[in-house]
């Protein structure tokens, strides 16, 4: 028999029993939709995890801290027994030589104050190499990422303006009244680097407790040309509150400001004299591929440093989302299984009804293989039609869920991603599964039809 003839014959047979076919198809529709919608929820969940990770610094970066944090905070004294590994330029260079490491940037952090008119703000500066800054891919509302060799420039976070307070009344307009302070971020600012000295002179305690000399108010530097991260005041991301700068320019500026004095945060000798080298707070390590992050991290911790990355968190989050997906998919699979029993039942009924017909076509010389194919095709058709309709239904449900539950969820979890995502592979997978389920449930009925004796079939009245 031609395949086309087989096809039309089985379609005609289904068409003859419209209502029963429709009901059986309905079972498959529900089963397919159940699987697709359930899995789409799992996929969306996983996707939002990954987006969260992306927001908090990506999947291929490692932040490295010096071996002993606490010693660092205690005025840099090296009296501890544990030998502390500091993040010096040598160590940075060593990190850069590791396998799978694309590049390393030192991170120098420092607090500064900027003032304009009535208002001032404390900023936390993270100075990095321009290579790292470029890699961070900071989205800018205006301005540009500071490059090597340029004058010192800052990139303000999109929420920076909320940190301005009125120095006289000591009130934050944004947090207290919801008003945005009258600060022109594109205008000129005074920048104060020696924050300690500023506060000491401000509170009137203008004498150094150790040397007893009077402290002069620190010098203010006029600066403009600030760049701004894009995003609204309510939009939180990893760039929204910190201030970024080029590390070379920033170091040069600090040297200029503090001259021979110790720069805050930098180690000093016992007599308070600064060392000649820099010690950084962090190192930003960029790894070539997500899969290598854990290995590189291991090597770094063997060096006596403290690496942190999103790898572990991502792994556990993914494990969790996988098990959620399995549970959701399982629920869908059960309903598809029920549908497959429906198909098998329909096919059996249809064979009992058509015993005579099958007998006749066998006597007339229809080959056993053709008979089997005929019934398998019918079952496969039920699966295919059910799969297609189920898929259409799934897209509808998915769209509705994203419409109504999406806003609810984003309010709750702070993520803007959708609740249900149906990628193309899932559609294809669902179609193949429903056809496969059809064929599998048609398999035994088809065998039965094939084995019917033509004689007993003819005798049936």
């Amino acid at each position, binding site marked *: *028999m*031609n395949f*086309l*003839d087989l096809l039309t014959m089985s379609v*005609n047979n289904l068409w*003859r029993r419209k209502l029963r076919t429709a009901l059986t198809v309905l079972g498959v529709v529900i089963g397919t939709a159940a699987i697709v919608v359930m899995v789409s929820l799992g996929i969306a969940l996983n996707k939002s995890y990954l987006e969260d990770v992306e927001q908090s610094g990506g999947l291929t970066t490692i932040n490295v801290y010096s071996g002993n944090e606490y010693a660092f905070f205690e005025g840099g004294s090296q009296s501890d027994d544990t030998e502390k590994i500091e993040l010096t330029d040598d160590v940075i260079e060593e990190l850069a030589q590791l396998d799978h490491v694309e590049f390393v940037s030192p991170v120098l952090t420092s607090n500064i104050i900027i003032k304009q008119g009535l208002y001032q703000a404390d900023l936390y500066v993270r100075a990095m190499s321009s290579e790292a800054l470029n890699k961070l891919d900071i989205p800018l509302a205006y301005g540009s990422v500071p490059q090597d060799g340029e004058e010192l420039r800052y990139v303000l976070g999109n929420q920076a303006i909320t940190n301005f307070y009125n120095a006289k009344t000591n009130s934050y307009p944004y947090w207290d009244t919801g008003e945005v302070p009258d600060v022109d971020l594109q205008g000129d600012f005074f920048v104060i680097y020696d924050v300690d000295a500023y506060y000491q002179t401000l509170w009137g305690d203008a004498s150094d407790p150790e040397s007893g000399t009077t402290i002069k108010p620190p010098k203010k530097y006029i600066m403009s040309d600030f760049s701004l991260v894009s995003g609204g005041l309510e939009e939180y991301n990893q760039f929204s509150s910190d201030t970024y700068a080029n590390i070379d320019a920033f170091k040069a500026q600090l040297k200029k400001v503090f001259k021979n004095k110790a720069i805050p945060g930098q180690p000093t000798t016992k007599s308070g004299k600064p060392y000649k080298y820099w010690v950084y707070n962090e190192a930003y390590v960029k790894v070539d591929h997500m899969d290598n992050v854990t290995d590189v991290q291991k090597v770094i911790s063997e060096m006596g440093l403290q690496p942190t990355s999103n790898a572990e968190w991502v792994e556990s989050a993914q494990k969790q989302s996988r098990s959620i997906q399995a549970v959701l998919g399982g629920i869908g699979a059960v309903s598809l299984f029920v549908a497959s029993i429906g198909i098998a039942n329909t096919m059996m009924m249809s064979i009992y009804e058509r015993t*005579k*017909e099958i007998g*006749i*076509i*066998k*006597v*007339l*010389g*229809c*080959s*056993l293989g*053709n008979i089997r194919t005929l019934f398998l095709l019918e079952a496969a058709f039920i699966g295919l039609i059910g799969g297609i309709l189920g898929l259409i239904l799934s897209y509808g449900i998915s769209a509705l869920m994203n419409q109504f539950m999406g806003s609810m969820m984003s309010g709750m979890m702070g993520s803007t991603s959708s609740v249900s995502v149906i990628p193309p592979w899932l559609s294809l997978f669902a179609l193949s599964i429903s056809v496969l389920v059809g064929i599998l449930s048609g398999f035994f009925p088809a065998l039965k039809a094939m084995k019917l004796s*033509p*004689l007993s079939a*003819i005798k049936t*009245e």
Partner: protein
Amino acid sequence: MSETKSEPVIQVKDLYKFYSIGNNKVKALNGVDFTINRGEFCSIVGTSGSGKSTLLNMLAGLEKPTKGQIVIGGEHIEKMNENQLVKFRREHVGFIFQSFNLLPTMNAVENVALPLTFRGMPKKIRLAKAAKMLELVGLKKQCKHKPTQMSGGQQQRVGVARALVVKPEIIFADEPTGNLDSNTSAEVMNLMKKIVREQNLTLIMVTHDNHLASFADRIFHIRDGKILKIEDNTNREVTIDEEI
């Protein structure tokens, strides 16, 4: 006619068929031997339950003999498996049923074309052949009729057309007129005989009616699973022809 007579198409040797129902053994066929030649029209006649259908079904490969040989066109039917039997029927055999057994969902021409479908013939060609066959049995106008829209006689004509359309070497008919009144029976019988003659086909027909059996060249009388006598009708037929 005489030149084809010498070539045997069907050879049956020592054929037995037993059914066991509980502890009882029914001897439906109890040792049958005969030979049928190409182009012959044979009828098998006997009372109900004498084993006619059993014999015919075994010749058509629908049932396996308990013992014995059936050789058709040089091939041993009793040794074939289900697949080979279907292929054998598809290529060599046409079948006419007592209860017509047309597929109720198909119209006349589709029913006739059905055996050609199983041979993988393209739709256009097979429908054309079927239409021609229907014309031959006098149902040109009823081409598009469903079985329920036709009389018994018309339905059986469709059945005859369906059996003939594949140009089979052998046609089996089990009580082909059993569901028809006597006038229609005669019509159908004449039709079958005419076509079989024209196309030099071998026809084996089962009937319980002695009159209908007498249409054949040879008449096999069967009782209790045994052939009582084989009546050669050809000479008489010739004399009848001469009288006319």
